[in-house]
């Protein structure tokens, strides 16, 4: 019952929001409360999963391979919590004011539909159901991106829509072929019964199809080009939502599908993931250095750091996967914060072009120092959360003798520092280009605007302080992921004989 809450609560909230009058202030309150309730439910699931192991719910009491199963292992539970946290921050940021037209067109309800799709994708134990949740989430994000209907946003939305639909078509193709081979769609049943029926050739083709479709969604090189071309156009709150959640759903799906369905770390697909992750890091960060718009810099950083979140899968050790999980958690928080910070600039100066910004430190040192934390955390400066996550990943690389890879990761961190220092220097530190004229009537940032940023920065600091417990939870999650038999027995019941893996 508990497992349905992260799906049912946003759905209920979205319905309630549609029933409320179009222009009332109540919309924001209801949306925010709904997000808070989802967060409570998500934390409850996480606690239950921590204490009692993998949680399973057979929807409609259909026994496992026949109906749809909801499964929360530690990774799912952690991701659901993060999604709910970002949901709270984004709905909270609407108190500072939303364009009334967007609000009238169902902005708040769409955010909740998107959150529902994301939570559903994290919790489902059925691969076709995963496809359906992907589509729910995508449709909501399509509409959120194109609500504004300025030219730039429409074009960006079209790039985004086209590429994501292509990814979905690949995913559906892979599911069709998989069903033809295995005769089942339940993850646990696939992991349990499929190995006896698989053929090596189709196996390789399937893994590449999954890699392509999830790679497009996650933003891996060479499939990421839609991302920097579209993520800088929607309003900052929507940008924070998309940047924090959608690519991570791709990463999550990749981890889930590959650990359960392709449990042979010597397969060629893992070499492909390794190489793609490494190139993604380098290309993303070099791309970031060439940009002048804050939100484009962030988009490229988002892409570059996706490499860190998928590389653990390719290394296939508990330590590496734990590092990647920790990195996903850290990255979701930090990149959303930074997109919200870009919203502060939008509100104050109506632009995020770095050349036109500046003087923030002089005008509002508190805000500037607040933004310093996620900036440095993204760059991985000790002792912030980014450093801890990177330490875990690079440590595991050295342990498994991937010295070149460790070297690449470390130089990419240097590039990130360069990119973040540039953002700090240009946006906060330097003199504003036309200071005397503007500063007189620059609106001060109210508590409502800063609230969500403060909330997320506090959580980043919390993740830093709780680094040890967080790392232990991530390690447990990674061990759960690598123990596919445990997953199978949790879903199909203890009576299932151990598969000959």
């Amino acid at each position, binding site marked *: 019952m508990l497992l349905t809450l992260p799906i049912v609560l946003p759905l209920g909230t979205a319905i309630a929001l549609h029933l409320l009058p179009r222009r009332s202030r109540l919309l924001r309150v209801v949306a925010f409360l709904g997000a808070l309730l989802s967060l409570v439910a998500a934390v409850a699931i996480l606690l239950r999963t921590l204490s009692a192991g993998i949680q399973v719910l057979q929807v409609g009491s259909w026994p496992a391979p026949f109906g749809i199963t909801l499964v929360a292992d530690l990774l799912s539970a952690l991701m659901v919590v993060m999604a709910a946290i970002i949901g709270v921050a984004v709905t909270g940021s609407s108190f500072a004011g939303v364009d009334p037209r967007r609000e009238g067109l169902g902005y708040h309800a769409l955010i909740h539909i998107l959150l529902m799709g994301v939570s559903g994708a994290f919790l489902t134990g059925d691969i076709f159901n995963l496809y359906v949740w992907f589509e729910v989430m995508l449709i909501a994000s399509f509409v959120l991106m194109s609500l504004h209907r300025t030219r730039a946003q429409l074009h960006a939305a079209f790039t985004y*829509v086209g590429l994501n639909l292509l990814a979905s078509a690949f995913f559906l193709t892979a599911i*069709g072929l998989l069903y033809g081979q295995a005769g089942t769609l339940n993850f646990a049943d696939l992991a349990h019964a499929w190995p006896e029926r698989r053929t090596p050739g189709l196996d390789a083709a399937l893994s590449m199809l999954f890699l392509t479709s999830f790679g497009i969604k996650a933003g891996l090189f060479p499939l990421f080009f839609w991302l920097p071309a579209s993520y800088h156009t929607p309003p900052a709150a929507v940008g924070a939502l998309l940047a924090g959640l959608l690519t991570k759903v791709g990463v999550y799906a990749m981890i889930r599908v590959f650990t359960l369905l392709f449990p042979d770390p010597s397969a060629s697909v893992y070499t492909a993931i390794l190489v793609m992750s490494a190139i993604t890091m380098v290309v993303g960060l070099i791309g970031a250095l060439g940009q002048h718009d804050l939100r484009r810099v962030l988009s490229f950083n988002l892409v570059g750091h996706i490499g860190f979140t998928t590389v653990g899968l390719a290394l296939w050790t508990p330590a590496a996967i734990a590092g990647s999980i920790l990195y996903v958690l850290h990255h979701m928080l930090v990149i959303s914060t930074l997109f919200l910070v870009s919203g502060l600039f*939008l509100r104050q100066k109506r632009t995020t*072009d770095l050349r036109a910004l500046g003087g923030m430190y002089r005008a509002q040192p508190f805000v500037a120092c607040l933004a310093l934390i996620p900036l440095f955390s993204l760059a991985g400066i000790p002792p912030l959360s980014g450093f801890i996550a990177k330490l875990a990943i690079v440590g595991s690389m050295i342990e498994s003798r991937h010295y070149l890879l460790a070297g690449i990761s470390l130089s990419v961190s240097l590039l990130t520092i360069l990119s973040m220092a540039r953002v700090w220097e240009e946006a906060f530190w330097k003199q504003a280009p036309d200071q005397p004229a503007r500063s007189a009537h620059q609106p001060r940032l109210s508590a409502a605007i800063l609230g969500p940023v403060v909330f997320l920065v506090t959580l980043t600091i919390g993740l830093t302080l709780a680094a040890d417990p967080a790392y232990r939870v991530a390690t447990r999650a990674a061990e759960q992921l690598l123990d596919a038999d445990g997953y199978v027995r949790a879903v199909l019941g203890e009576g299932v004989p151990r598969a000959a893996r």
Partner: protein
Amino acid sequence: MELLLAVVAGVLYATGLYLMLRRRLAQLIIGLGLLSNGSNILILSAAGVTRAKPPLITGASIAADQFADPVPQSLILTAIVIGFGVLAFALVLAHRIHQSAGSDDIDSFGADSTQALPAKVDRA
């Protein structure tokens, strides 16, 4: 029958992808539609085609090989519904773009129409 379906699916994928590589919005959308139909046929043929054995259980005892597998059909049904919704959205989006840009050539949109952030929403 399976061979025919496989060939049809292949042709749909090929034409769909070819059209998606074109520069016109309309062709891109038609390509998407063909692609999703191709994957529907692929699901049907990959799961095995059974002739004239509807998955309706009338008697009390019918062996599993006496009727077609209903799962791929339900998958396709779901995929058709989703594909329809997505395609409708893409069409509206393309129509809006055509209205605002006055052309449906993707390259004519301007390389960097995204730099400036308009303060006001245009009326399009």
